């Protein structure tokens, strides 16, 4: 319930209502209770977090395309369905492209306990070659013991992989439901997103309405600019990497290009993580191009990304100091691993938008609360 507005004597605009200490304490307690209840509900519904994040990601990436189609005269629902079909087609095409590599690997996997895969045999042969080469060059070092330890580690890894495969397959199947749910949520958000935002804003009291609107708008812009920029940049990087790897004759070129493109989403550390997979593979597979040629391809693609693609595509994205990004990635990695590293930058950007809006709101309130000065009565005219 709103309290009656107080007008300073002679003023035309009510003074900014100031809460008493008691009201402030009650307000803070209510806020804490509501926040705790919201956290409790969020904990109960935590299984929805992944589909919701996925749906938002899809929504932000597809929204410009849906808006563009609608602008060309397509009904909204047709535009949204067309975009959904487009992304599904792109993913299916990517899957079809990558599947042969994965199938080869799966066929090489051991079928019975104790049986060794072709990949392991190849790896062991390579390790023995390296051991022999190093032992010939540096005979005083105990290479046999060192390589024995490496073999032990690899054997342990192989066993855990074989034992974990059924669980991995079941886990992947359980995510099918989440992916479907994310698609359905994304469809409705794309279709009715602005109406949902308006419905949410209707619940905001009048005195906070404009500020809430500005804040939502800034958050929306930050996330949108970051996600669209990131997806566009990394699709281009993936295409470039695939072309380079195909040109070098790298086996499973598309798979390693996709790995590099996905890892490239992580600022700074991403290119190293993405390149490591291909470089390690080239060490083990005799059909792979030489390590030097492959490293050069990764460096060239990364330089093209850093010098041309990133500044153009991400130019209108986040206004963030590199030190903030580095510290953020370290914190994100510590808190949530690779997912934390991926999510921390948009999270910082959203936090920045919220904090800057709140600070502006406080400054606005200070300007608006300037004391009203009634006009001084005119001096009596001399009789």
């Amino acid at each position, binding site marked *: 319930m*709103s309290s*009656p*507005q107080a*007008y300073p004597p*002679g*003023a*035309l*605009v*009510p003074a*900014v209502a100031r809460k008493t200490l008691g009201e402030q304490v009650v307000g803070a307690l209510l806020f804490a209770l509501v926040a705790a209840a919201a956290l409790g509900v969020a904990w109960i519904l935590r299984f929805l977090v992944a589909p919701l994040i996925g749906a938002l990601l899809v929504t932000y990436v597809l929204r*410009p395309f849906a*808006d*563009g189609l*609608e*602008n060309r005269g397509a009904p909204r629902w047709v535009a949204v369905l067309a975009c959904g079909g487009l992304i599904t087609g792109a993913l299916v095409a990517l899957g079809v492209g990558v599947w042969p590599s994965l199938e080869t690997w799966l066929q090489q996997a051991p079928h019975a306990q104790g049986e060794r895969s072709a990949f392991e045999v190849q790896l062991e042969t390579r390790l023995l070659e390296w051991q022999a080469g190093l032992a010939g060059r540096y005979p005083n070092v105990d290479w046999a013991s060192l390589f024995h330890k490496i073999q032990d580690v690899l054997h342990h890894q192989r066993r855990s992989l074989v034992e974990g495969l059924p669980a991995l397959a079941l886990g992947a199947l359980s995510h099918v439901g989440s992916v479907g749910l994310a698609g359905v949520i994304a469809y*409705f958000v794309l279709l*009715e997103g*602005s*109406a*949902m935002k*308006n*419905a949410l*804003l*209707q619940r905001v009291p*009048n*005195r906070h*309405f*404009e500020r809430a*609107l*500005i804040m*939502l*708008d800034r958050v*929306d812009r930050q996330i949108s600019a970051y996600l669209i920029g990131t997806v566009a940049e990394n699709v281009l990087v993936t295409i470039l990497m695939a072309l380079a790897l195909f040109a070098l004759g790298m086996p499973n070129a598309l798979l390693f290009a996709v790995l590099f493109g996905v890892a490239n989403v992580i600022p700074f550390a991403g290119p190293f993580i993405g390149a490591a997979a291909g470089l390690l593979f080239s060490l083990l597979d005799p059909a792979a191009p030489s390590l030097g040629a492959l490293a050069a391809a990764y460096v060239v693609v990364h330089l093209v990304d850093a010098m041309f693609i990133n500044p153009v595509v991400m130019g209108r994205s986040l206004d963030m100091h590199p030190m903030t990004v580095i510290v953020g990635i370290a914190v994100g990695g510590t808190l949530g691993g690779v997912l934390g590293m991926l999510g921390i930058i948009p999270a910082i950007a959203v936090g920045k938008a919220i904090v800057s809006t709140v600070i*502006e709101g406080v400054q*606005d*309130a200070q*300007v*608006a609360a*300037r*004391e*009203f*000065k*009634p*006009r001084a009565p005119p001096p009596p005219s001399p009789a």
Partner: protein
Amino acid sequence: MLETEIALWKPPEASGVTEDELATLRATPLFKGLSDGDLKRLRKMLHVRHFTPDEVVFRQGQTGAGMYLIQQGEVDIVMRRDDGTEVKLVTLKDRQFFGELALLEEAPRSASCVVRKPSVLLGIFQSDLELLVERSSRLGARVLWNLARLTGVRLRELSASIRVDVAKRALPEEVRS
């Protein structure tokens, strides 16, 4: 829709656009030249706000985000001078609008707006205008064109008012009083 059907999500516009809302939009120079179909589409983007008497819509100096149309009610536009005194600039009633310059940039409001009678205001904000341009560039261009013309009119009015003020200052004290 069957009466027994349960709608999990019902958008606010599902109830349709009232004739009163349409009349408000038709009377607004910002939406001049738009068909009823365009106005109905536009209405879905607007924010309906209900105010009680003495409520402040916005205060002078606060960052503005958009404009309001008065569907019903009455508001005062009040300016605070540098010396801290206040002056009422104008009283606005049904079908009138205010705050249109904030559609162009997030600048501080040049005056305050206080509600005098129970009012229903329709708000349109920068983000709504951008969305309109992205989803229907023809409609968005028409609204922006009208906004440019309105800004021109406001500038001419301001310029005329400054000329009168300057002319008044030039007059001797006894003539001015």
